[in-house]
């Protein structure tokens, strides 16, 4: 059975950029985008795209990629299309800015309702900027569909999904009917690289652009006005710490000194 799949992807500042490049503007409580480091598709979201494409490889179907964000977020959508996604939707409106998890889930759910047909919706386990891990479950709740989170494997079995959900001491295999929302974790494995052919095809694709009024969202439902949580302060924690670097004639001697130092300080 061909599957109708939707993947939600967010564009974020590169989470693996060197910590020294990380800066906050304390007047606006916002991160200052680092010079020369391009924003990326959130890594778990690239894996969510991968999860959808693996199912498409086996069962066929359609993968629609959707992102809410500034104009630059089209690059995250295009990346997913270059990986093999079929259609892209960009939700861009100034009024969407500063939305919290609650409002973001509403906006995405409205867009998904407008798309209409879906068997499986994929999200990342958490967006690697705010690491909230809320939006996927929120979308499922708003749409009234079941959810399975932190999945490392998703398969179809007799018209249902079988999902390996990672837990503290291993994983459990969870079965759910369609439609369903699944959130993906890095244990799924590396997302595929876009091929040259994929990149060219994605470049030609026209994204669907929707704004607040296309989604029937009123001004009080979005951004700071609609948020249920309020940010009071964003700051870089103070890091103290002086490292005692242990040296020696050679590394073996340093190792001996380290062991003795740990004994001396009663650490071992």
């Amino acid at each position, binding site marked *: 059975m061909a599957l109708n799949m939707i993947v939600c992807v967010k564009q974020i500042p590169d989470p693996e950029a060197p910590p020294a490049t990380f800066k906050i503007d304390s007047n606006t409580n916002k991160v200052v985008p680092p010079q020369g480091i391009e924003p990326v598709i959130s890594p778990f979201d690239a894996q969510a795209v991968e999860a959808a494409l693996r199912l498409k490889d086996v069962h066929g179907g359609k993968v629609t990629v959707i992102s809410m964000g500034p104009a630059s977020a089209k690059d995250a959508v295009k990346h997913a299309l270059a990986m093999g996604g079929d259609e892209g939707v960009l939700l861009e409106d100034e009024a969407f800015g500063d939305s919290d998890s609650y409002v973001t889930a509403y906006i995405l759910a409205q867009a998904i309702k407008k798309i209409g047909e879906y068997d499986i919706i994929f999200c990342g386990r958490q967006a690697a900027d705010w690491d909230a891990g809320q939006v996927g479950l929120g979308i499922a709740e708003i749409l009234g569909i079941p959810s399975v989170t932190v999945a490392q494997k998703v398969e179809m079995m007799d018209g249902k999904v079988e999902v390996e959900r990672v837990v503290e001491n291993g994983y459990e295999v969870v*079965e759910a009917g369609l439609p369903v929302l699944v959130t993906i974790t890095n244990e799924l494995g590396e997302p595929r690289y876009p091929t040259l052919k994929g990149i060219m095809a994605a470049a030609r694709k026209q994204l669907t652009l929707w704004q607040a009024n296309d989604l029937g969202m009123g001004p009080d439902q979005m951004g700071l006005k609609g948020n249920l949580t309020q940010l009071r302060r964003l700051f870089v924690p103070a890091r103290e710490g002086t490292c005692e670097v242990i040296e020696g004639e050679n590394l073996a001697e340093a190792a001996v000194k380290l062991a003795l130092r740990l004994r001396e300080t009663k650490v071992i």
Partner: protein
Amino acid sequence: MSAYRSVMLFGEIANSSLASITRELLGAGRKLANDLGEELFIVFLGNGIGNIGSEAIALGADKVYVVDDPLLGDYRTDPYVTVMEKLTKEAVPQILLLGQTAIGRDLAPRLAFRLGTGLSTDCVELSIDPESKLLMQVRPVYGGNALAAMVCEKARPQMATIRPKAMAPAVKNDSHHGEVVSVPAGLDSSQIRTRILRKVKQEAEGIKLEDAEVVVCGGRGIGSAENFKSLEELARILGGAVGATRAASDSGWVPATIQIGLTGKIVTPNLYLAVGLSGSSQHMAGCSGSKTIVAINKDPEAPIFKAAHFGIVGDYKQVVPTLTEKCRELMAK
């Protein structure tokens, strides 16, 4: 908002006793309840829960809700959200706290959306703002590069999940009194839309990583599954356990269950030996609470040296064998 009373906790059970996260929830919750002059409630859901009420009361709970039902045996989203929605609507707490655990990560967001309220996940600090009386929720963001202080002004309960090992556990006080209330689940199995087909355990042998007093953690620099064995030997001699960074577990050298960090396990041992890992903020989220951090890394500029107390700059292959031998000798004394 004045109709909202009490601080409520979602308790978890491990080996028929309170899970460590639950003691931490009780520690944090008791303080908040005292600051607000409110009662502290805790909820346990499960099948065949047994007598854990008195333990929770001795750790500060004023009221313990127990919901015991065969449909609550394994954690599943639908029945847990349904029961928690019902209990929350009855008890109308001002504040509802859960652990940032496998269960809490799944339950808390869906419950918050069901209740129409705001949630901050993975908080490391909770307090009552003296002026507004709102719950101030501090959580790491941007992989731990920053902290965000959040409040929930407009909706109730104010919801948060707490990061394991970030808050002090409650201290036992046998003279504290409280009551245990049994509540029927009132579930209908047709409302449960998922089924657990099987569970697969992938636990490492030996001391549990989360409980170990010494953790030897290897990163990408270790290079192979084979090389990880040298860390096992060092961990064994020190009576500890081996952990890994995501780079190491994603490479397939070790199982994902020993990954330490933001999306892995949180450890706070006496001694954390960081070998061949750079010290990314997402990794440090899982180990920065360790008492003593020792770094072995060939790159003197690696961020791990900013977090470490002791360090050796060099190839771990030339350090670990001698370190292991010397530790063996010292531990025998």
